[in-house]
């Protein structure tokens, strides 16, 4: 293609902007058929505009096809002007990077064969390929910027997963695979090192070859471009990740929160409101609940605890078992001795309650009562009707007994 004079090119772009923009829009969906291009060319009043489009490299005919597409370089310029960059694929970069290896191998072979023409051809191709990758990286950085801008300016009531759909797509299908490719232990670090080593070797060999001055200069530039490509690739990856990551995090945080709430509610449904486990660091109030049931929430907690209470099966307590657990603390002989001292006693049970109610159970108290009534132990008892008696635990009705003798003798007064 003949060299295009930059000023003429820019003037042509400005003058024919509506036509060029229309061609750009149409080529986004695929190659243009010749007839479509002719129809579009009718928009312009410039005579012979079709030929000018081809001469300026705006459109190029596809090999072995009547169709046209927009030149890569022009597409980049239009995309820059319109701020409409399309994010390429990580795979595309991978193919280009692998292509560098192919051209380098050809250069090494050309040097072995001392074929300067082949050497020149592949050196230029390698240089061109590196520039293509740099151009793609520039385009992709701009495309990511536009994706982030679009995501941030969309209406906020649209859910993040939908609002940031393009962001997630860019992250998952571009940034992640690219990161895996170019990370220090990845395949491309080794590839770059090999290419650099082989180019350095080729440069040394070229120095010994006479008549290869032009190629030596190209090689100097190539080594520089390769270094530039390595650093640009890392800068590009850092920039795109930094711009996309906050949005990716927001989507993932929203998803994780929704998932977590569902799990928490499932647990509450399964275990109950008062039982479902909640992290120990969560309580919002520090104070330990007081023992006294004083506030509404404590009452609720208390009621909840009661509702969860499951009684353990136990044997019923009987008088005998009670006695076994709490041995009689009063010696009957001592009681009888005291009774003798207090004779006459008008009401035996009343006397027992007065002296022993605080120290023995009702069971024991009644045992003492019946022991005096049945055995007497030398005491004389007289029935005196029935009365109600109050102990510290019970209210009981029992026959009233008066005790006024010891062994048939009245106590001396």
């Amino acid at each position, binding site marked *: 293609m003949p060299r295009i004079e930059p000023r003429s090119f820019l003037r042509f772009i400005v003058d024919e902007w509506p036509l060029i923009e229309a061609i750009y829009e149409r080529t986004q969906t695929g190659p243009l058929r010749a007839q479509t291009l002719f129809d579009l060319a009718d928009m312009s009043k410039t005579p012979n505009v079709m030929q000018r489009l081809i001469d300026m490299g705006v459109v190029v005919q596809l090999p072995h096809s009547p169709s046209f597409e927009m030149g890569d370089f022009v597409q980049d310029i239009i995309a820059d002007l319109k701020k409409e960059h399309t994010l390429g694929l990580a795979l595309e970069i991978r193919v280009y990077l692998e292509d560098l290896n192919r051209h380098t191998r050809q250069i090494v072979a050309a040097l072995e064969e001392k074929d300067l023409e082949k050497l020149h051809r592949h050196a230029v191709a390698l240089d061109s390929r590196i520039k293509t990758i740099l151009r793609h990286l520039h385009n992709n950085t701009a495309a990511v910027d536009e994706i982030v801008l679009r995501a941030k300016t969309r209406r906020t009531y649209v859910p993040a997963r939908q609002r940031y759909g393009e962001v997630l797509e860019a992250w998952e299908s571009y940034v992640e695979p690219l990161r895996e490719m170019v990370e220090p232990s990845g395949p491309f670090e080794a590839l770059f090192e090999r290419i650099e080593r082989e180019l350095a070797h080729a440069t040394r060999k070229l120095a010994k070859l006479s008549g290869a001055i032009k190629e030596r200069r190209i090689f100097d530039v190539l080594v520089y471009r390769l270094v530039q490509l390595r650093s640009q690739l890392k800068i590009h990856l850092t920039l795109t990740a930094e711009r996309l990551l906050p949005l990716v995090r927001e989507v993932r*945080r*929203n998803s*994780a929160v929704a*998932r*977590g709430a569902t799990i*928490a509610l499932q647990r509450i*449904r399964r275990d109950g409101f008062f039982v479902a486990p909640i992290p120990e660091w969560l*309580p919002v109030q520090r104070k330990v609940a007081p023992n006294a049931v004083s506030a509404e929430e404590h009452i609720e907690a208390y009621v909840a605890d009661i509702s969860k209470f499951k009684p353990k099966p136990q044997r019923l307590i009987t008088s005998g078992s009670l006695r076994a657990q709490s041995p009689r603390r009063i010696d009957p002989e001592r009681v009888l001795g005291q009774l003798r001292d207090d004779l006459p006693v008008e009401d035996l049970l009343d006397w027992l309650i007065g002296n022993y109610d605080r120290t023995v159970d009702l069971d024991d108290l009644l045992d003492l009562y019946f022991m005096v009534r049945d055995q007497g132990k030398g005491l004389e008892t007289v029935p005196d009707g029935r009365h109600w008696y109050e102990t510290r635990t019970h209210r009981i009705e029992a026959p009233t007994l008066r005790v006024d003798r010891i062994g048939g003798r009245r106590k001396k007064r």
Partner: protein
Amino acid sequence: MKIELEDLPKLKELFQTLQSGYHLSNEDFGLYHELQDKEGYYEALFRELGYTLKADQRGYYYFLPEPQVAMNVTTRRMALLVFVLIEYLADEGMDPYTGIARGNFSMTQITSGLFSKHADILRDGGLDSPESIEKSILNNFVGLGFATVNGDELRFRPPVNRFLDVCLELGRARVTEENDSKTEAAGGAVTAEEPDGN
């Protein structure tokens, strides 16, 4: 560290506020900034009194619960309301985290919406009407510094992150479990880790 009590004029007010379970955030202008300015002094002083002052980088202070403190009903009810609100927002196609952390709600709409969709579980937590939900929001969330209510407008304050963190923890634990099982199924193949470092 030498602490002059005259330099801490809001000590009593701060202590009483924090001790009641209130979470101070930047909307509690005077107290929050007093605490922020002299965080080291207050932290040391409260520690001597047996309290641990927790400063969260997202902009709030509170006293850490005592170890083995009983999970009170207030906390359970607040957690339940946040969980239900998250599920409600997610079901409505909204972003639950962003919505709660940064959005505003109409109190009337949100309480009736929550009750109409999640009445059963709310009843379990003692919230048996939209009015009781509103009462709980006012008493618990507003009363403890977790939310602001202005007319019908409800807005959560940064301390609500304490409840959102519970969900994040649970949600991420589930993702980790799923990833682990996938890794096992794939014979130990490494899976990409979650990029969120929070």
